[in-house]
């Protein structure tokens, strides 16, 4: 199987699942008491927090393990929102118009609870309009939340510039970054990014599913959004997913082992696929920016004009190749993707968008094998389409 959907989820290598099994089979206890097994597990969790914290230049006490990236976002966004509203009455949250559902849906939830949500427009490459952001801040604003690497455009939001804007204001404006598609792929330093919260998800960087983490800057208080026993933390109560946490730590260790080398390898792969698609397939549109620093090399998104993405995705799927699409036809409720719409793509351009996302396990050969199939699939579907101009049909 050729797999190019690593930003949706990624496979779990042996080193990781062996660690998961270890904490299911032998070290299955929870850090609940003075019992020796509990103490040793508590130490392992602490070491995992220290390690993961270090990868983003944070302390172990600033690293909270959660049951997913979505939960991490909820603990941060709902937690700070409720805390500030109760304490100061500020109730305005600013987010981008093309955010990942992990942020968009939390904002919608809070809107029903009396918060106001300001949506900031994005440009055609998916970057937040910073001028608009600056103008939108009002005396009620207490939080700005965005997706560091956009799930559709792959663009890297200029976090440190956003931070500078927020710092101009007398009253503290908190800054949340969803780094699910950035962690383990791009170098992250919470001080340089200037964020107060940062979340990531284990299964996006070859860790297990059902685990994530949240960076919470020292000194920040959050309202609890859950009730439950606090074996591990009162912000994320209940039994912690210890096999998941330890597996995620192993996945992080693997990701950071040859970080630069992996980054450069994926950058080359990404450029190679970009070059081949633009040379070998006519009428394609790149969604998002291109160039180092602007886009995560782990992410490419192309619209293939005149045909529909679900058909492309399924054709590739039946040929043993996994990609993803933003097409309405592949969505649960048949709605056009709001993120691409926010970037100014029309319906047809959105329907034809295919996302290829890489991992360090992809090879040049994978791309060669993909390109043995992709141009023919596109041509076959174009030959059948009602929209294809005559000059793009097979003679």
């Amino acid at each position, binding site marked *: 199987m050729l797999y190019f959907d690593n930003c949706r989820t990624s496979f779990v290598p042996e080193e990781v699942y062996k660690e998961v099994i270890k904490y299911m089979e032998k070290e299955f206890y929870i850090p609940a008491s003075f019992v020796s097994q509990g103490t040793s597990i508590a130490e392992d969790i602490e070491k995992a927090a220290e390690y993961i914290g270090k990868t983003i230049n944070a302390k172990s006490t600033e690293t909270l393990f959660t049951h997913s990236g979505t939960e991490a976002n909820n603990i941060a966004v709902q937690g700070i929102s409720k805390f500030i509203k109760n304490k100061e009455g500020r109730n305005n949250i600013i987010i981008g118009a093309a955010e990942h559902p992990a942020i968009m849906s939390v904002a919608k939830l809070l809107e029903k609870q009396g918060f106001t949500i300001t949506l900031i427009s994005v440009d055609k490459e998916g970057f937040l309009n910073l001028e608009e952001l600056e103008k939108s801040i009002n005396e009620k604003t207490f939080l700005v939340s965005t997706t560091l690497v956009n799930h559709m455009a792959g663009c890297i939001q200029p976090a440190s510039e956003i931070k500078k804007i927020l710092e101009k204001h007398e009253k503290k404006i908190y800054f949340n970054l969803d780094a699910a598609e950035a962690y383990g792929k791009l170098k992250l330093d919470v001080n340089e990014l200037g964020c107060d919260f940062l979340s990531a998800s284990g299964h996006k960087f070859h860790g297990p599913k059902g685990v994530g983490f949240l960076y919470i800057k020292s000194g920040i208080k959050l309202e609890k959004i859950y009730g439950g026993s606090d074996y591990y933390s009162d912000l994320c109560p209940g039994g912690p997913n210890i096999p998941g946490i330890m597996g995620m730590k192993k996945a992080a260790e693997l990701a950071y082992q040859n970080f630069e080398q992996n980054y450069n390898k994926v950058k080359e792969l990404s450029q190679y696929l970009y070059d081949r698609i633009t040379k070998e397939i006519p009428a394609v549109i790149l969604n998002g920016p291109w160039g180092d620093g602007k886009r995560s090399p782990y992410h490419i998104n192309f619209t293939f004009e005149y045909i529909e993405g*679900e*058909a492309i995705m399924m054709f590739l799927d039946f040929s043993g190749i996994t990609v993803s699409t933003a097409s*309405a036809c592949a969505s649960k409720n*048949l709605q056009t993707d709001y993120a691409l719409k926010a970037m100014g793509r029309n319906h047809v351009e959105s329907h034809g968008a295919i996302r290829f996302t890489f991992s360090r396990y992809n090879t040049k050969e994978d791309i060669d094998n993909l390109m043995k199939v992709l141009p023919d699939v596109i041509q076959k579907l174009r030959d*059948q389409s009602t*929209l294809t101009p005559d000059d793009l049909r097979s003679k």
Partner: protein
Amino acid sequence: MKKIQYSQKVIDYFMNPKNAGKIEDADIVATEGSPACGDQVTMYLKIDNDKIKDIKFQSYGCASNIATASIVTEIAKGKTLEEAKNINWQEAAKELDGLPAVKIHCSVLAVSTLLKAIEQYEAKISGKELTNTVTEENIIKKLKRVIYPPTEKDVLESNIVREFKIIAYGKDKKIEIFLNIDKEDEFYETIKEDIEENLGELDNCEEIIFIEK
């Protein structure tokens, strides 16, 4: 958790569709659907002695759009026009061993394209002008094409549209649609867009007004 999966037959008809393409000297060509909604089908018919001698299709759409258009052309080929008029989306879906609920509209679109082609052909032969104006009959016909996936039935049968009213507005007409669907329903926007697209095709439809639940 709901499973969304295509049958092997859908996959086969999608990967190797029968009757894909164009008939250059077709007797009638009809198109239904819109690219904005993500699906559009064109059918080309060659008719001899009131029989569908040849039929081909083009499709802009998803896997099931291609598969349903293909199967409908197969079912219709060789049939008389009267026989072909009785083809319905249920039959097409059954021939494909079923469709996921969110894909039933593809089958509806494919059958609608065929019926439109036959209707246009008959009008052409008889010299009668086709009326595609706002009438109760035409509204019902159009609403029957809008499928509410959770019930796998159209919006009238599903009682998603409680009733409708035609408001005369000079030469043009406005249509009031009385909805019976929660705004929270995941298909709320899709259903409204689908109703707008279908009723919008009526020639003198000036405006569609939704009256919420």
